[in-house]
Structures are given as C-alpha cells and as structure tokens.
C-alpha cells in the first residue's frame, strides 16, 4: 500500500488505522504484526515531529510525505519520504550513520542509556525513535538525501523488517 499527501497529525492517524486493518488481513503472526506496526508508528511520528517546525510557506500546496508499505516473500519494507530543512541534514545523517555502525548489543546499550538519561524535547521526541527502529528491524537504515531547493531536502528512509525475528530481539 502507498500514500502520498500531507503530514498533519490527523492524516497520519488515519494512515495508522488503515495500515492496522491491512496488516490484520495479510499477517497471521501477531508478533510480526505488532513489530511492523510499532516500527511504522515510530517512523510516522518521527516525520510528524520533524514536520512541526517547517513553515507552511516552504511547502505551499506541495504534497509532503510519501509512504510505502510492501510485503515480499514474507519480509516487510517501509519506505518513507519527506522534506526536511537543509540545516538539519548533517545531524540526521550523522545520527543514522552512527546507528548503522553499531552492533545489536551496542544498540541495546545506547537505547537503555538514552532511555534513562535523555530528556524529552519540546517537539515531543525522545531521541529514541531511530535507535528503536534499527533495533527492532535488526538491520541497517537505508537512506538518501536529495537537495530540493535552498531551504529543503527530500529525505527518504527504507527499513526492512524480516519475516524471521532478528537475532537481536531473541538475544536477552
């Protein structure tokens, strides 16, 4: 399934509802269903928190979020695209590169440390979203930035959620 449109809270909520119905139809395993939904919520809320500080002028009527959920051979793929401010790009890129460089044990450690120490930002982000997405999907975060104009870049993210549970989640 795919979606292209604005990133306001109501629409993202509706999108979550639709995905939930769809997942109930196609996925028999409740733990996989939950995991896909959980990762999806984190990704969409990440976008929502980022979207919050981009002014409407930058967008005009431009459709701002692209979303695809696909299932092939049992594996799920979530692909999203949204605009971010150019000045945020280096920090976001550095964060994803760091997460991708960590082993599953190290990811868990960083997650627990951030959970215990970090504060919640004004936007409502906990700094845990991308770490959690990497941890629960058990793989790398694939991404691309494309310069759109002087202010904005288009950020795409792809996450693969394997049909078999990743070892990271099995290890205690």
């Amino acid at each position, binding site marked *: 399934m795919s979606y292209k449109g604005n990133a306001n*809270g109501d629409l993202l*909520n509706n999108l*979550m*509802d639709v995905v939930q119905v769809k997942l109930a139809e196609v996925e028999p*395993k*409740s*733990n996989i269903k*939950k*995991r896909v*939904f*959980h990762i999806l*919520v*984190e990704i969409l*809320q990440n976008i*929502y*928190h980022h979207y919050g500080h981009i002014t409407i002028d930058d967008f005009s009527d431009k459709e701002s979020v692209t979303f695809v959920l696909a299932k092939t051979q049992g594996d799920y793929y979530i692909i999203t695209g949204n605009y971010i401010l150019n000045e945020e790009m280096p920090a976001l890129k550095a964060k994803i590169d760091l997460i991708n460089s960590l082993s599953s044990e190290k990811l*868990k450690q960083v*997650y*627990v440390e951030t*959970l*215990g120490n*970090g504060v*919640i930002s004004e936007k*409502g*982000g*906990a700094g*845990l*979203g991308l770490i*959690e997405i990497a941890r*629960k999907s058990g793989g790398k975060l694939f991404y691309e930035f494309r310069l759109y104009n002087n202010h904005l870049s288009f950020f795409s993210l792809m996450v693969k959620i394997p049909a078999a*549970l990743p070892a990271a*989640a*099995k290890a*205690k």
Partner: protein
Amino acid sequence: MENFFLEETSKTPKLSFDVSTGKFLMSGRSIPENSIEFYKPLFEWLDEYVKKPCPKTSFDIKLEYFNTSSSKCLVEIFRRLEKVTDGEVVINWFYEEDDEDMQESGEDFKELINIPIIMNVIEN
C-alpha cells in the same frame, strides 16, 4: 485524594490508579504523538501519592505496544515510585508468550529502575 482513572482509547492506555488499595493498572496501547501532555496529569497525581503511599503498591502493566516517547514517560512514572520509602512497590510486567519485543522492553526497564519488576507471561 481521588483515584486516577482514564478510559482506554485507540492511542492511549487505560489508566486506573486506586489510592485506597495501591492497585495500579495500565493496559492497552500508548502511542500518542505528545506523550508528555498525556501523562502529565498522572505525574502530578503520583507526586501527591508518593507522599502518603499505601503499605503496598502493586502496579500491573499490560501494554500491547507503546511508542518511544511513552517509554520515556514510563521511566518518569517509575522514578516517582522509586521515591516511596515507607511502603513496598512492585511492578508486574505482562507480555504475550510470543511477544519478544514487549518482553525485551520489560528487561530494559529492569536495567534502569530500582523497583522489583516481575515478568509475567500471558499464554496465548
């Protein structure tokens, strides 16, 4: 002081905090965009509760799933309960048999929180 009670919605959990029995329950899902806004009244309620807690506080958590900003709020809730010195506090963490993610979350909190967290499997 009054009990704290909220009905479950599609994005927020049922919250039932009984001041006279010390029985606390959180169940359902917790995925609000703004978790702080949602949990703030509960934080304030707990700030009052810990001043005069029940001899035993038993907190059952039966969540289907929660977002990362809610997990921060759970830490905030547990930190408040850690302040109880004149009473016993126990957290009962429930997860479905095949739900490794929810089990793992319980284990994460165990590493961070100085309150006994008892893991309970719900058999499917």
